[in-house]
């Protein structure tokens, strides 16, 4: 495996007639790693992935995929990558096995299609025509098509959007196994949990730009305030609590009986809060110390209004 990144995107710009879908985006994915491209609808995730797959032309910027320029989707590149597009991808009347066999025939050393069908839980619908499959079954077939050719690099565009929790965990296990075996995975997702569970690197995009990048750990700890939440009888006088805490800590009662202390929560602060409750003769219940979740980071960066 070469030391060169599997995917390298520098200052990518994609403009359509009136809109700019991607506006100066950078990312790098190394072999054997998983990169999650996270962003609201219309952020430019799919456009970026399609440029890397070679299906969409770019307006400006440098893109290298497995050491090649992907523009025009050359056969030499398509033979080495696996692609799971967002939705669709078969003859309406084709059966699961026939479709997977067709895609497998395009590869030199495909995985065993029978095994893959069984692994992805598609046996029960292997004889149904594609258009009769549920959204989740279609998505699992699409994933099978993406990995059947033993690619070095896999693009998964929202791989779990139609799946139930079992299906989602199956796909997560599969992505982890791909990573363990040295396959590079670039996935897009709306699900923060998915990015947190799978990704070595997360790139949050909005309006075609990178608004944050790093490991899930880095993103959730950097510049973030910790919070400590607990439950106790409503109406406690919090000015007294703030008296026993160091300078700069804030406390508030949200819904009655739900208290939050924000600031750097270390063992001393935790002890001070519970000791103060004890002195009031109250039991602090359901005590939780929380760092920001990736979802908090995401919403802070991209705003809370709905995107169309």
């Amino acid at each position, binding site marked *: 495996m070469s030391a060169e990144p599997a995917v390298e995107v520098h200052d990518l710009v994609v403009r359509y007639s009136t809109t700019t879908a991607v506006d100066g985006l950078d990312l790098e994915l190394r072999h054997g790693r998983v990169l999650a491209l996270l962003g609201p609808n219309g952020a430019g995730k799919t456009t970026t992935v399609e440029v890397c*797959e070679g*299906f969409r032309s770019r307006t400006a910027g440098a893109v290298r995929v497995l050491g090649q320029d992907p523009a025009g*989707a050359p*056969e030499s590149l*398509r*033979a*080495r*990558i*696996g*692609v799971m*597009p967002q*939705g*669709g*991808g*078969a*003859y*309406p*009347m*084709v059966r699961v096995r*026939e*479709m997977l*066999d*067709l*895609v*497998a*025939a*395009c*590869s*030199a*050393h*495909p*995985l065993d299609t029978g095994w893959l069908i069984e692994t992805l839980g598609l046996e029960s619908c292997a004889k149904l025509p*594609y*258009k009769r499959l549920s959204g989740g079954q279609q998505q699992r077939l*699409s994933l099978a*098509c*993406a*990995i059947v*050719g*033993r*690619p*070095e690099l896999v693009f998964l565009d929202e791989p779990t959007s139609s799946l139930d929790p079992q299906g989602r965990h199956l796909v997560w*296990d*599969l992505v*982890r*196994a*791909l990573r*363990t*075996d*040295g*396959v590079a995975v670039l996935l897009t997702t709306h699900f923060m949990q998915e990015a947190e569970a799978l990704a070595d690197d997360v790139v949050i995009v909005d309006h075609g730009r990178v608004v944050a990048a790093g490991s899930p750990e880095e993103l959730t700890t950097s510049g973030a305030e910790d919070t400590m939440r607990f439950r106790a009888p409503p109406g406690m006088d919090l000015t007294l609590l703030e008296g026993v805490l160091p300078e700069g800590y804030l406390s508030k009662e949200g819904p009655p009986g739900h208290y939050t202390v924000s600031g750097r929560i270390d063992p001393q602060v935790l002890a001070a809060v519970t000791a103060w409750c004890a002195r009031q003769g109250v039991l602090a219940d359901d005590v939780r110390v929380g760092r920001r979740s990736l979802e908090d980071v995401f919403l802070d960066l991209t705003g809370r209004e709905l995107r169309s």
Partner: protein
Amino acid sequence: MSTGFDTGTFSPDPGAGSRGRMLAVHTRTETLLALRHSEQLLLTLVIPLALLIGLTLLQGLVELPEPRVNAALGTVLALAMMSTGFTSQAIALGFDRRYGLMRRLAATAIPRWLVVTGRLGGMAAVVVIQVVVLGGVALALGWRPDAGSLGWALLLVVLGAGAFGACGLLLGGSVRADLVLVIANVVWFVLLFVGGIVVPADQLPGALGSLVMLLPSGALAEGLRDVLLGGTPGLGHVVVLLVWGVVAGLVAGRTLKWD
């Protein structure tokens, strides 16, 4: 966390499959799908078959030269090529595009020319079945072919399938699937009755008769009836079919949408 997959299961080992195998599997899939589609089978086989028997046995239906079965065979072979090459092909491609098939195939190592070749291969398989079945039933109805007319007829069948196939790819590859469905069926119906297929061109009113000779339907049906009745095909018919095939093929190659 245990993944349940043995290490090394997905170790990369990429590469393009052999062209021969891609072509074989793709053509097989296309053929299977063409044969599975019951509406398409009705269109491509049952209607021509019914028409062959009807035109041969029912004297008063359409005025045809003797032996009636020879002329009727020419008519239904032209109809069969239009059904398979144009209508079925266009509708199948339109819906395949809607379901994202072209995108899927474009993401594999299969070359684009091979995707088109596979489609034509599937079409050819249906054409062979049509020719065998219709020819067999015509024999049973009293058709006695000679080698010369058979050769010319097969040449025209190939040219006709090519011309209609190119037009089918052009239509199916360029507009929305539901629009393809409407256009392909309307054109089939119109050409069947006033395109020189069922009603011979010389029985059509006025200028329409000479106009339909410039359409693939008229050129193919008239050419086939000529050769099956013992004549040679007019050069004009061959040229018309070639021009439609080449021009529509070239335009389809440029306009075919992969999504």
